[in-house]
């Protein structure tokens, strides 16, 4: 009897303690601590870092890569990744603006066509990866070249003439508003809304359980009746659509579309995701971590310039900081496994 009571007491207490220690050990928590440290260092080194203007600047760029990173997190959690996002980021707005400027299409229809194009690119990625069974690295690398090449070809390599037609859709994607001395873009709302959705899906929805299971052990998920291929294809489509959406937001914000926009973004986005604590090998994904990762890379890029690191040396610092984060995650992971 006494023993039973003790067991029950132990069972009641254990999860709380466990949860607290697992929170502290979790990768998103250590990323958050490092983000705070980084912000503090930059703020001390240059007091303009936390000025309304600079914060507004960071918040203008953040959603564009952040939105892609949300899709990439889900995709990576399912065990695949997409290198074509930077190219899609470039192509989608180019197509939309060309259709309006040269084709005389209504902007709403052109935007829709741009999204359909993104869906098609994502579907091609997903179908080849799942149905033919080629690694997503190779497939999306090839698609990157095709998509980037297409953007260059249809524009003949020149940026489009600048966009001069404000309207509902432009405001919806890239409108801005002021809160006190801060100036924010509507894209921030997109990022916040999509982040909440992504957190919900990955942590609380049935689909999230499937995504993690597929990335963790695909055959186990399939054996339980999870439609792994369909889930992956939809995630490729989602990632492509988000990349296109981010590209349109960016193009409308600066009122110009360039065929080389988004070059190198695929690696920056993957860096954001893994720095946040999502496993490159699949199975373990965290949207909160990705948000922290996106903030961190944004802050690093911005802070390093303010602190006065020479522009050409700048990537050295970015690389070193990312590497340090990954080493930290690996060590924490090792520690957790040992205990």
């Amino acid at each position, binding site marked *: 009897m006494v023993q039973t009571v003790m*067991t029950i007491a132990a069972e009641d207490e254990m999860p709380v303690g466990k949860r607290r220690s697992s929170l502290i050990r979790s990768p998103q928590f250590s990323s958050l601590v490092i983000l705070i440290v980084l912000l503090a260092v930059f703020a001390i080194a240059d007091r303009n870092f936390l000025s309304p203007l600079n914060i507004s600047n960071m918040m203008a760029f953040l959603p564009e890569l952040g939105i892609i990173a949300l899709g990439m997190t889900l995709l990576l959690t399912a065990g695949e990744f997409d290198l074509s996002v930077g190219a899609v980021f470039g192509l989608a707005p180019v197509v939309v603006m060309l259709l309006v400027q040269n084709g005389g299409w209504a902007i709403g229809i052109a935007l829709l066509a741009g999204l359909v194009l993104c869906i098609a690119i994502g579907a091609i990625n997903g179908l080849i990866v799942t149905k033919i069974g080629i690694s997503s690295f190779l497939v999306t690398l090839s698609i990157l070249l095709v998509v980037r090449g297409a953007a260059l070809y249809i524009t003949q390599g020149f940026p489009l003439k600048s966009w001069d037609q404000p309207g509902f859709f432009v405001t919806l994607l890239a409108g801005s508003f002021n809160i006190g001395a801060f100036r924010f873009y509507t894209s921030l709302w997109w990022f916040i809304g999509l982040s909440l959705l992504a957190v*919900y899906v990955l942590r609380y*929805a*049935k689909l999230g*359980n*499937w995504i993690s299971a597929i990335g963790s*052990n695909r055959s*186990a998920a399939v*054996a339980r009746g*999870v439609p792994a291929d369909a889930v992956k294809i939809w995630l490729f489509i989602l990632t492509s659509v988000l990349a296109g959406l981010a590209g349109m937001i960016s193009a409308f914000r600066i009122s110009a579309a360039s065929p080389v926009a988004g070059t190198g973004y695929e690696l920056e986005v993957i860096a954001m995701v893994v720095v946040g604590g999502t496993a490159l090998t699949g199975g373990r994904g965290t949207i909160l971590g990705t948000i922290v990762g996106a903030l961190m890379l944004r802050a690093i890029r911005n802070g390093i310039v303010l602190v006065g690191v020479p522009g050409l040396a700048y990537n050295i610092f970015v690389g070193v900081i990312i590497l340090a984060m990954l080493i930290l995650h690996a060590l924490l992971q090792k520690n957790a496994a040992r205990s």
Partner: protein
Amino acid sequence: MMQEVLRLQNLQKSFGSVCALKNASLTLKEGEVVALLGDNGAGKSTLIKAISGFFPIDRGDIYVRGEKVSIRSTREAMDLGIETIHQDTSLAPDLSIARNLFLGREPVNLKWLGVFAPLDLAKLRDAASALLKRVGISKKLDADALISTLSGGERQSIAISRAMQFAARVIILDEPTNNLGVEETHGVLRFVKEMREAGHSVLLITHNIHHVFEVADRIVVMRRGEIVAEQTVADTDLLTVESLITGADLSSLMKRAL
């Protein structure tokens, strides 16, 4: 007379020009443990994959409780009450025990949301704890623990309890004692006996003939895609079974050697 649960009739399956399964027929009764034996490449895996819906068969019929069925997906197999536990591939290591137990059959609120429906986390956790308690491993394991923190035997217990929980008619165990320690192996064999007592039918695939004699009622031997022998455990012995598997007449060889 025990009732027939699963009957396979003349199953045939080829991969390209390779005939992996030739005219395989097999009957499984309620509360019966049948051991499926055979060397590597004998067609055991093909047979169980066909039953558990990994690929369609080319020819032949499958009957569940006397009714002819077609199994086109793992989902359909599960819905017919056929649960398969694969060597070490049945669980997702990065998911908690509770989430693994209900993978593919998650309890949800707001069902109309489809795949976006929120998991009923309280129910998930409670059901998982109750299940762990019932199979007697609650003291050590927390339903929220990740599978990656468990030992091989614990993982196998989780996979087996998952199959039992959904009241499967037929439980297929694919090499369940591979990579397990002695004690863990005994735990799994005890589980097999419990499954039989609970009325489940078990198809046990293993390389370890000693385990077969410990738990099985009947032995089915496959060679080159064909079922070459079927015997009750009581009517046979280790040497006979070994010669059936390899195709060489070991017992006469042994006699000659002696």
